């Protein structure tokens, strides 16, 4: 095989194996086509990579832990090197976790890396999803990858919950107890689910079923599904080519960037090492989940300030601020106080996120392929809705720590609860309004930049003695980014030929669609290139007055 355009032969050590594979698979065609694949650069494109590499680290450290961990609820009396718990009755799961931490060399490091990697995995997924959402990168043709992403986040939550339940310490047992309570609240089948999950009653079931079951789900089933989905996610991304940020020379039909081989390959390799290094650093110096301090699970004990891992905080917060509503009728009970917070908020967020690309398409009527991402300011409704969702999630998440907030800031615990009960509804509305205003302000700023140029930082004194700042046209980079905005006109083709209403605009749904369509673009500020650059100081339009506010 030839690896170079100059005709120089590749060394035998390289060409030998490649030829061997090519003779059997024809793989060189694939390699040749893909080795120079362009990967556009932007810092925000690395967020997904953090998630990917954290996942790899999770697989590596997790495998290490399974070599010593005993997923068993069999009761033992601890006699080991953590002398403070000597003589204490505990499950084998807990005892083996102590063993990994204190007797296996590198065990504590691997445990802490595993936990930190899990936390980083979930953070990276969330931030990556926010990037994709706010830049509209989920738009056609990438809806499938968006849905896979939501699936991965959901699975990650479950995987994390099961994972930190395994050591069978006081904190994880409390998490399982809450899981049991939530399962029981489900109408009709709740108690059956509970019995089937635990193999009987909490916590020990008939024969200590729950820990082995969670173990299998945690190390085999869920990671298997995650791995499959990650693979699909990557393959789709590879096939569709990554989106790019707007810039000079970048269009919807091209990809500008550095080739996969060697630049991107080396960069992403370095990035894996950075992720690994940072997780190792955290695991070295930042203690996490010190289960030996919590003690083994005891159904009658609890510690104040119990907090789950961050990604479960939103459920915790919802449970905390829900009013205590319960209905009993016809011999049956429905616990709205558990059911609503357990299923409601995440249901709204996940279902909303999954449907959003299709709702947006329906509203805007935009069925085109998008390969260049949109700046958040240029889609104020989307950005506003996104910020509303972030606020909703954020308020619930903060409510999950209301006891900590109450303690640290010396406010009444009940006051924090009441605050969040309102904030969770008012916050998103405010966030939407404010975000939309900021977006429109930024659009005006862009329009002004195109119209008047940017401040040069040069102050000019006029013959009359007045001072003014010189403006210059924006540079090409800036112009390309600003002009990537697609100016919107709020009009759906309401009528087809001969005045017949278009099929999509009839009926109440059609009217709703028309209204939303109008709303989507109603306050769009047109941004256009002005080839004749007038000096800003000469022009005193209404727009330049408003421009001041936006900086």
């Amino acid at each position, binding site marked *: 095989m030839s690896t170079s355009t100059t005709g120089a032969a590749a060394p035998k050590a390289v060409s030998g194996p490649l030829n061997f594979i090519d003779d059997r698979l024809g793989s060189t065609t694939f390699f040749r086509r893909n080795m120079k694949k362009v990967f556009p650069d932007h810092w925000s494109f690395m967020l997904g990579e953090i998630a990917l590499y954290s996942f790899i680290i999770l697989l590596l450290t997790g495998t290490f832990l399974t070599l010593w961990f005993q997923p068993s609820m069999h009761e033992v009396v601890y006699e080991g090197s953590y002398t403070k718990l000597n003589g204490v009755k505990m499950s084998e799961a807990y005892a083996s976790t102590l063993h990994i931490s204190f007797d296996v060399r590198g065990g504590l490091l691997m445990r802490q890396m595993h936990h930190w990697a899990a936390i980083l995995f979930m953070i990276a997924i969330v931030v990556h999803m926010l990037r994709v959402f706010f830049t509209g990168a989920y738009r056609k043709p990438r809806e499938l990858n968006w849905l896979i992403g939501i699936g991965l986040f959901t699975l990650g939550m479950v995987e994390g919950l099961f994972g930190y339940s395994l050591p069978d310490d006081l904190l994880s047992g409390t998490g399982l107890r809450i899981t049991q309570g939530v399962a029981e609240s489900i109408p009709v089948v709740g108690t059956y689910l509970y019995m089937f999950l635990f193999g009987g009653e909490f916590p020990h079931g008939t024969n200590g079923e729950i820990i082995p079951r969670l173990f299998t789900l945690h190390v085999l089933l869920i990671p298997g599904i995650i791995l499959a989905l990650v693979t699909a996610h990557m393959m789709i991304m590879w096939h569709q080519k990554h989106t790019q*940020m707007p810039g000079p020379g970048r269009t919807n039909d091209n990809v500008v960037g550095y080739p996969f081989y060697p630049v991107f390959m*080396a960069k992403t390799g370095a990035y894996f090492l950075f992720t690994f290094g940072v997780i190792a650093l955290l695991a070295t110096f930042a203690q996490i989940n010190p289960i030996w301090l919590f003690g083994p699970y005891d159904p009658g004990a609890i510690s104040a300030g119990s907090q789950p891992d961050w990604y479960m905080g939103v459920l915790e917060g919802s449970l905390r601020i829900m009013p205590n509503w319960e209905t009993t009728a016809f011999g049956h009970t429905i616990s709205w106080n558990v059911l609503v917070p357990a299923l409601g908020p995440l249901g709204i967020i996940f279902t909303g996120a999954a449907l959003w690309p299709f709702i947006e398409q329906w509203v805007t009527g935009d069925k085109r392929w998008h390969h260049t991402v949109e700046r958040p300011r240029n889609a104020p409704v989307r950005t506003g809705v996104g910020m509303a969702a972030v606020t909703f999630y954020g308020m619930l998440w903060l409510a999950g720590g209301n006891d900590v907030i109450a303690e640290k800031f010396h406010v009444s615990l009940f006051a924090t609860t009441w605050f969040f009960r309102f904030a969770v509804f008012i916050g998103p509305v405010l966030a939407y309004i404010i975000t939309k205003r900021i977006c429109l302000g930024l659009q005006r700023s862009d329009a002004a930049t195109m119209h008047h140029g940017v401040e040069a930082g*040069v102050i000019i004194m006029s013959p009359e003695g007045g001072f003014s700042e010189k403006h210059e046209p924006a540079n090409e980079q800036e112009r390309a980014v600003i002009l990537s905005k697609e100016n919107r006109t709020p009009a759906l083709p309401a009528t087809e030929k001969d005045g017949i209403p278009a099929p999509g605009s009839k009926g109440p749904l059609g009217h709703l669609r028309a209204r939303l369509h109008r709303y989507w673009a109603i306050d769009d500020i047109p941004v256009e290139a002005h080839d004749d650059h007038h000096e800003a100081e000469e022009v005193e339009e209404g727009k330049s007055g408003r421009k001041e506010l936006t900086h």
Partner: protein
Amino acid sequence: MSDNNLGSNEPMEPGDAAHARNQSPKRVIGTPEQGGRLLATAESEPAPHGAGAELDEAAAKRAERIVALFFLLAALGSVGFIAAYVWSGQQGPNGMHGIEDARASNYALGVAMTVAMLAMAIGVTIWVRRLMTSKQIVQQRGPLRSDEETRAEFEAAFLEGAGDSAVTKRPLLRRTLLLAAAPLGLAPLVLLRDLGPLPEKRLRHTFWGPAVTEAKKHGKQGVRLVVDGAPTQALKVSDFATPGSMITVLPEGIEESHHALNEIAKAVTILINVPADKFKPVKGRENWHVGGIVAYSKICTHVGCPAALYEQTTHHILCPCHQSTFDATDGAKVIFGPAARPLPQLPLSVDKEGYLIATDDFPEPIGPSFWERG
């Protein structure tokens, strides 16, 4: 204004940017840099020194040495990791031993691993930025959608295949196949039935019930209370005479029961000595307390955390998980938080020898609500 050379549609070379910047009027300190305000500027030059440009050989040599230095550091880190591992094994008879050794070992191994990873990462990064000469390239995106012809051909082939297979023409075949497939999908679900027992009445009773029955069989009035953690020590009224105190109790003999942990998880109870002047017995439960000593289920009626905090001054019982708050003086009724129902109360009495006893099970199911609870 006239000195700008911008406005072309060609991709900007990094050199051009520098050129344009040099020609603009001098910037006044404290004012925004021209063009430096937008987020997208940095990305046009991700590999500024190497990319596409002729490398300055002296600079490249310097960069190479720096990269090599980092790679050596990474190698040292890895060797250090192995050394730290061996060193960790020197301490106890079977390797590490205890919390101090574990901590020291964690630091040594973690620092070595961090150095190895980060040094290598930094080395590769400098390598990419200073030494790689790949040019930025532009690739066209092809349409993702197959063309109409391909679609039409596929459709035709699909219909032809369906026709050839006779599945469209022979409904009996089709329907019986569906009939065959449906139970095949359901059958494996049946296998999950033995995951656990049916709920039956399990959630309605606690070990207090059978324990009281057993005690009454032996001619006693009820079962004695033992302190959680001291299963042999039955509690006397005189042991618990200080108003304002709270302890966790269990029925005597629960440790020896079948599935003790499950029984404890349901039967765990808090005993509170409410000052007699503050105590307001619930109607019909006037004789369920012993001079203000009252017992409630410890399992929160919200989602089942132990309601373990007791505030002496306000007589509030607080669940630390979700802050449901109950009034100990008033039948543990809910004062605040997400719990809907009071903590179930255990009927207490005192036997002839002065021991606290429970005379019956909780009158209602303890813990979180469920569909069949009613």
